[in-house]
């Protein structure tokens, strides 16, 4: 039972056990926007702290606020001080609720579940039942597992995940890689900055190629193909497409070989730009569509003549034979 009451007062930053990160959820800890706002209007919300047995103050909520205060050279900060007797589960609940309205990012949600289970010793069922809905998540063990897995991200990768707003599915996939794999991957990703779909595809292709060859992801991304791409003068989007194609070729060698064969054959047809041949995706189908663009009946006639001409070519027969 709590006998002492909470108290509101200005505290000296020296009273705070700054290295006690028991309830630290926020990520990243330095918030430039908060620093700026604090320098203009001061700290609007007090820190929530709890007295420790050694009478130093443990932050429950307000790590970012404290960092911003220190950045602004403040020595005193307003705080709501909870008594020693407050139990950790309640303190943690307070920490989560205090910042709920601003919304948590992926890493912070992961921190919440990690601390809840490993520090507060809540069960997985409690985390699923009480905390997942609170954070706006569909309760379920596999989602919880994915969030917890983010604790395996290296510090640099964690920051990349945060700064690129990476979705959980990709981040948890990356979290399954070891540190060396994550470092190599990060070197690959940083200059390319792929969007979500490209990232997903490239990760799957790299991971599956590595699994098939008995290598790890680091071996895949250290290949010379990628070095050549990164050293080239191509633009970022072009490099991204080249890297993507290289990965696809590693993962799907027959598909890639067939596609380049089709490209060669199509080139040999010497079609004008206003005729486009469209093959069914992955050759799943038996019909080629020819798309014609023309502005006059004469132009259409010329295209029709060209089509008649190519219909006798061996290359077109070979393309048809692939369907």
């Amino acid at each position, binding site marked *: 039972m709590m006998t002492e009451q909470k108290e509101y007062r200005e505290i000296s930053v020296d009273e705070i056990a700054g290295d006690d990160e028991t309830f630290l959820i926020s990520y990243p800890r330095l918030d430039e926007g908060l620093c700026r706002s604090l320098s203009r209007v001061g700290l609007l919300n007090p820190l929530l702290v709890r007295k420790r047995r050694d009478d130093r103050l443990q932050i429950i909520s307000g790590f970012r606020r404290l960092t911003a205060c220190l950045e602004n050279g403040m020595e005193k900060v307003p705080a709501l001080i909870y008594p020693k007797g407050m139990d950790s589960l309640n303190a943690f609940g307070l920490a989560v609720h205090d910042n709920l309205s601003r919304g948590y990012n992926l890493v912070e949600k992961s921190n919440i579940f990690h601390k809840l289970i490993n520090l507060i010793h809540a069960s997985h069922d409690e985390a699923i039942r009480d905390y997942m809905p609170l954070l706006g998540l569909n309760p379920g063990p596999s989602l919880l597992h994915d969030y917890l897995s983010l604790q395996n991200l290296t510090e640099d990768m964690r920051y990349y995940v945060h700064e690129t707003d990476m979705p959980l599915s990709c981040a948890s996939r990356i979290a399954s890689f070891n540190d060396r794999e994550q470092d190599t991957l990060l070197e690959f990703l940083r200059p390319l900055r792929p969007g979500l779909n490209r990232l997903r595809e490239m990760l799957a292709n790299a991971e*599956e190629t590595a699994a098939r060859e008995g290598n790890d992801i680091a071996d895949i991304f250290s290949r010379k193909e990628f070095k050549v791409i990164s050293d080239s003068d191509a633009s970022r989007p072009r490099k991204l497409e080249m890297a993507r194609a290289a990965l696809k070729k590693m993962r799907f060698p*027959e598909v890639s070989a067939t596609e380049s064969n089709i490209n060669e054959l199509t080139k040999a047809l010497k079609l004008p730009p206003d005729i486009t041949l469209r093959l069914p995706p992955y*050759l*799943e189908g*038996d019909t080629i569509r020819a798309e014609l663009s023309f502005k006059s009946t004469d132009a259409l006639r010329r295209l029709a003549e060209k089509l008649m001409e190519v219909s006798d070519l061996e290359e077109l027969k070979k393309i048809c034979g692939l369907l």
Partner: protein
Amino acid sequence: MEKYQISEIYVEPSAMERELTRRVLSSLPELPVYETDEARTSPYEITTEDIASSKKRLYIRDYKGEPLKPCPGTQGRLCCNYFIVNLAVGCPLDCSYCILQHYINSPYLTLYANIDYFLEKIDARLEAAPTGRSAAFRIGTGELTDSLALDPITGLSQVLVPFFAEKENATLELKTKTAEVTNLLGLEHRGKTVVAWSLNPQPIIDSDEAYSASLRERLEAALLCQEAGYRLAFHFDPIVNYRNWEQDYLEVVEELFARVKPENISWISMGGLRFSPDLKPIMRERFPESHLPLGELIPCEDGKLRYFKPIRVAIYRSLLSWIRGRAPGVPVYLCMESADVWRHVFGRAPSCDPKFTIDDL
């Protein structure tokens, strides 16, 4: 073959006194039995642990829906006019590519005990059907389970085979990856039951078909059924593309025809490995050593992943030529393939009607 992993039995009270329940309980006397109205179901999504549990917990209950269903087939693919009866949902075997891992919505292997209900409904459906070739029902019990894996404890074949022996317009297909045929051998089947095996080279059985019988055991069991006068069928399904596929599948074909006489085979099907993209992460998690999800599988029109078409066509053609070389008269068909793949393999598609029967081949 290692036997079942079943370690607990749950029984719905209404199913407790049924013949099938008694038989199962007396076959597995060492296992704990829980009588329960509603076996525990997960309030959340089914996890990979639940899939593993579904191999260990048997739930015996009554079934109340429509028992005879047309095989769902798949969009844009030719379908073989097949009907299914699901007497069980879930399977004691554990194949890496099993679609049940994705379909399953309960952590149990469910076995339906009210067999009389099934038989009455099937009877009524068959009697109401017009007679004639196109009305012949080919009925299988192996869509959501292996048809014979549990037969030693359920004895279901002893009910089903004599039942279908009496039917003029229906054939029962018992499809299995086991060698559990002892119950079948003395039964009066009148040629109305086809016993079918899925076949794969032994390296694939070893890596991806856990708790199933070896290739040799399957073929020995087929031999026993042949001697007991049964019609036989074989499914090269799922066909896996790997480095030694050519040599290994040829050996399977050779071993098959070294034992089984072509005239006793009703049909042979070929189907390449295919699965929905949602199954892939489950396969990767549950069977991290399996190379199956790492093949050159591309998305097809029906949403499933399949080997790139030229790969499939090359394998089907080789397999077909090996089969035709040894058994020219046996009907061979493709399972869940498009008309253009049929044309590449057979030179023609069987019928414009996406529903064809085995007689169309």
